[in-house]
């Protein structure tokens, strides 16, 4: 690290911090979008349930509306991408922030107490290993 010019290290650190700020904004956008979608889906399902209540389940309209409820249930499974994305973003954010802080200390030297300012690297590998949104397994002990 000592062979790299200070301005190169500073630029690298700056890039890493910019990336972490972008991840923060992405996290906020995803959360907001997902909360709105859940609210809308829940509202639609509530309206459908009101329409079919007190009617015989075999009525033509009820069968179709029940199908719509099933579609909303499927959407609910897919919407859980936000929880996984959020964990992935948090993990990556922490790792990048750790790299940026380490670069700072390595290149500009450390003073007493600087170590405490370095964001710790994640202790465990990324907890999200899913690569698709199919429903996960269920195991009863």
């Amino acid at each position: 690290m000592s062979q790299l010019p200070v301005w190169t290290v500073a630029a690298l650190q700056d890039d890493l911090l910019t990336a972490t700020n972008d991840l923060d904004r992405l996290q906020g956008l995803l959360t907001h979008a997902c909360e709105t979608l859940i609210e809308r889906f829940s509202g639609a399902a509530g309206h459908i349930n009101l329409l079919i209540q007190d009617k015989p389940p075999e009525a033509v309209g009820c069968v179709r509306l029940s199908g719509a409820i099933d579609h909303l249930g499927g959407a609910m499974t897919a919407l859980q991408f936000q929880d996984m994305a959020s964990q992935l973003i948090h993990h990556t954010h922490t790792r990048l922030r750790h790299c940026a802080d380490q670069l700072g200390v390595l290149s500009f030297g450390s003073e007493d107490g600087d170590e405490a300012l370095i964001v710790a690297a994640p202790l465990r590998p990324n907890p999200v290993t899913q690569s698709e949104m199919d429903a996960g397994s269920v195991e009863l002990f």
Partner: protein
Amino acid sequence: MHTILAVDDSASMRQMVSFTLKSAGYTVVEAVDGQDALEKSVSRDFDLVITDQNMPRMDGISLTRKLRESPHFKNTPILILTTESSDEMKQSGRSAGATGWMVKPFDPTKLLEVIKKVTR
């Protein structure tokens, strides 16, 4: 109808679990992490606990262990609903006293089937 304690630090996950359970007629109490769940479990009993694993302050496995220490929760079903799918983690959940392990994302219909089975 049963009362279920739903524990997750993600607000959107709590919303989705609550919506699924309330649509099926269950009463739902939400907690934002294991510590919050533990505090809520002091003042009332629940018929089922559904908890995430990775949460600040107290994770799902630690919550399970703590709840099992209480005579009120000795036989209460506890489901861990998490993104974690490693065998080691599942084994830890089982040793702590969890009733089952569900990997996210959950399918609402499947979740309701499992709840019906474990609360029978």
